[in-house]
């Protein structure tokens, strides 16, 4: 019995060490990848990003394998809720489904609900969380719609013994008791990177507008903050408008048209979510304007606008990895594990800024469309 205890202890130690080293290695490779994002755009200007296939291909990692962690149960049931029904979260869902399939191959059945309202709403998310609280879920995952409203609720849930994690692009407020977060941890920096690229393109001089997604959505707000901070660094740059499209392409289009009416000589638009650049590009194209657009995410239409030069650059997040890692982390949390060796308190997923030359490759990788 004593020897068995020692043997199990050594096995666990070796396993934990392996997982730790593996996660360290993964993290460092992503950091290296981020550090390597410097090349020149089609006009020969320095930029973050590269036209190389390898670089663009690494923006989204579709080849995931579960780590060596052995789940304690053979059935898990999760609940995930996110801001709004939108293709961005559909991409996250595909990563989740891949992880679920791989667990199934190991004999572990994972079921989950992946729900969101048609329009982003913190109140709706609140209701969903209260409903989920009463359900029989091993872990509840939240892409926070509004950190001010949702974070206290998450704290209450944790206090009541419910295992809660956050995921995708928006973490809860700092100090929230949620167990872990998987997703973009650098929204502010993404906002800064895109805005820096725009400023450089404009010669650090001009009038710009900012389109944001949902009011209170941490990821959108953080990117807008990063954008504003960057603009503030250049005295000849001016923000003339800031608008929220509530994750609606149509609204983004209408807002852009309004801004263009108000400021016909607008030099640039900074788009902080996935719907912003699509709506903005439609309006710019319709107007025949030369306004430079920088924006977020991998919308197929936006990538086509990038390909034809209407959009200057896009920050593409690795949604697939977010989904895959969310399920892996949820399983570990469900088993009662805490952040540390098995998973990090914040699992960071990469954002890659791509330019016109990269658009065809990204369209091919994501949609089989070049």
């Amino acid at each position, binding site marked *: 019995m004593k020897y068995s205890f020692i043997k199990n202890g050594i096995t666990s130690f070796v396993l934990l060490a392996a997982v730790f080293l593996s996660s360290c290695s993964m993290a460092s490779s992503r950091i290296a990848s981020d550090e390597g994002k410097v090349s020149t755009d089609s006009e020969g200007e320095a930029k973050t990003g590269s036209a190389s296939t390898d670089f663009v291909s690494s923006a989204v990692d579709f080849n995931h394998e579960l780590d060596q962690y052995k789940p304690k149960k053979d059935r898990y049931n999760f609940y995930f809720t996110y801001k709004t029904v939108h*293709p961005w979260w559909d*991409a996250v869902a595909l990563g989740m489904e891949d992880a679920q399939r791989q667990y199934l191959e190991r004999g572990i059945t994972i*079921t989950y609900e992946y729900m969101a309202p048609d329009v982003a709403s913190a109140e709706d998310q609140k209701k969903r969380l209260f409903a989920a609280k009463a359900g029989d879920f091993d872990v509840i995952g939240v892409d926070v719609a509004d950190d001010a409203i949702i974070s206290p609720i998450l704290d209450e849930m944790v206090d009541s013994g419910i295992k809660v994690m956050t995921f995708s692009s928006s973490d809860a407020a700092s100090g929230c008791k949620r167990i872990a977060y998987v997703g973009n941890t650098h929204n502010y920096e993404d906002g800064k990177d895109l805005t820096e690229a725009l400023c450089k393109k404009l010669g650090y001089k001009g009038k710009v507008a900012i389109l944001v997604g949902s009011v209170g959505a941490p990821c959108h707000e953080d990117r807008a903050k990063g954008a504003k901070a960057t603009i503030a660094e250049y005295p000849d740059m001016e923000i003339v408008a800031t608008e929220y499209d509530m994750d609606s392409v149509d609204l983004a289009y209408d807002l852009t048209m309004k801004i263009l009416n108000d400021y016909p000589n607008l030099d640039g638009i900074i788009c902080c979510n996935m719907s912003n650049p699509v709506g903005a590009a439609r309006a710019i194209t319709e107007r025949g304007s030369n306004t430079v657009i920088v924006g977020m995410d991998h919308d197929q239409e936006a990538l086509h606008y990038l390909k034809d030069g209407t959009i200057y650059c896009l920050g593409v997040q690795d*949604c*697939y990895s977010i989904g895959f890692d969310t399920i892996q982390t949820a399983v570990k949390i469900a088993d009662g594990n805490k952040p540390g060796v098995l998973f990090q308190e914040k699992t960071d997923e990469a954002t890659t800024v791509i330019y016109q030359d990269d658009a065809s490759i990204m369209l091919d990788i994501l*949609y*089989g*469309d070049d």
Partner: protein
Amino acid sequence: MKKQITRKTFIVTAVVGGIVLMALVIINAIVSARQTTTATNEAVAEVSSFYLEAMADRRAKTITNLINKNFYQMEIAVDYISNEGIESEEELRNAIGDIKRLLSLDRFALVDKDKIVHTQYTTYAGGSRHAFLSGEMTGHRSVSTVSIYGSSKQLCLASPMDELTIDGKQYVACFVQIDVGEIIDLLAFDDNRTYFGLYGKKGENLSGTKLGAFVSTHNLFEALQGIVPEDTWTENRDNFLKAMDGIISFNVNGMEETLCYVPIEDTDWMMVVLIRESDIQDRIRSISEKSLLMSKRQIAFTLGFSALFFLVLLYMSKALAQKDLEVEKKNAQNFRNMANTDSMTGVRNKHAYSEMEAHLNARIRQNEIDKLAIVVCDINGLKIVNDTMGHAAGDRLIKEACSLICEYFTHGAVYRIGGDEFVVILQEKGFDSLKDVITEINHVIEENVKKKKAVVSIGYSELTPDDQLVRDVFERADQMMYQRKLQLKQMGAPTRA
């Protein structure tokens, strides 16, 4: 004057005729092969369009059948769920698992009235993920294309269902998604010389399959812009938008390519099939070359066989001619023998004697003969026998006398030169033994007189230096024979009165 056909003429005619015949066969075969190739190429050019259209239609129908089959299986699946008495979400998930396993509907799911999708393992909001859920659900079957992030395209088949309530949720529709890759596998049933692909209405490649080396996986109309005339390009792009079929031929880097497209029923897809004209030409050329090679072999075989046949024919003709010649010679010899032989006795006749006499005369003139003797023999009493005992008895007497003469003059040539007259020509050995033989035969004849047997009067003479002709020798012998005839008469031999 009529010209006689010689053997040489015959052979030359046969050889020249054979060569001309073979040349005609070869020329005819080559011309035929070329005409066949040309005719086939023309035919292929005419039918290639039809062929492509048929191939495109066949593949399009395969997809239509697949769609219908899946809709049918969805009906069965919904019936199964409705009749299972399912009461909870977990039971529903298990039932969906059963359906996936039993009906091979891998991506089967139900949709509730809030557009929430229920699969075997997940429940998710599907408004942005499935085109048929993006607006109001129509209550009709729908077929739509789904672009899967990081994956291939899928065909989504959605069907409304009679309202079904389970655990308080109202289910209003079901759907399956078929991966384009699976459809492509299903369509890969022809040879590898044609290319095909599934395209969207804007010419975008949905299947990821290469449409030849030039178009490859690119957008069809982006690839063809500037390659085909602008009006052709516009017409075909409009055909795509209107889901109409059509054919485009274009030339890239000297390669003629033809593609055919047909709309796929119930979908917004176009089936495009491409074949390179050179592939058809290569194939035809290959077939033609094989055919030509076969013809050449046949011609070579025919020529070889014909040459061999002619040789055999020639040999046989020569052998036959030789045989005819030998038969002719033999016949001639027989005729000659018949002409020189006395039919009754079998000894040489007067004609043979005359030839020999002429021959000997020539030799005498040239002084080539040293030893020559002529013996003249005459049968005594032949006429009496003929008259008294009949000609048959006379013939027997002739034969008996001849046998007697031949028996003793074994080294001489015996001739019957008249009815009862024989001549024996003796040379060399016969000449040397002449007198002994005469003594012996005369003794026998004298005995025959007593026994009433054949009696022959014999006279003989030898060639002397004064003799110019055989006739000279003959006459002396004839004289001697008459003297002998008298002697025998006196001994009692029968003699004509």
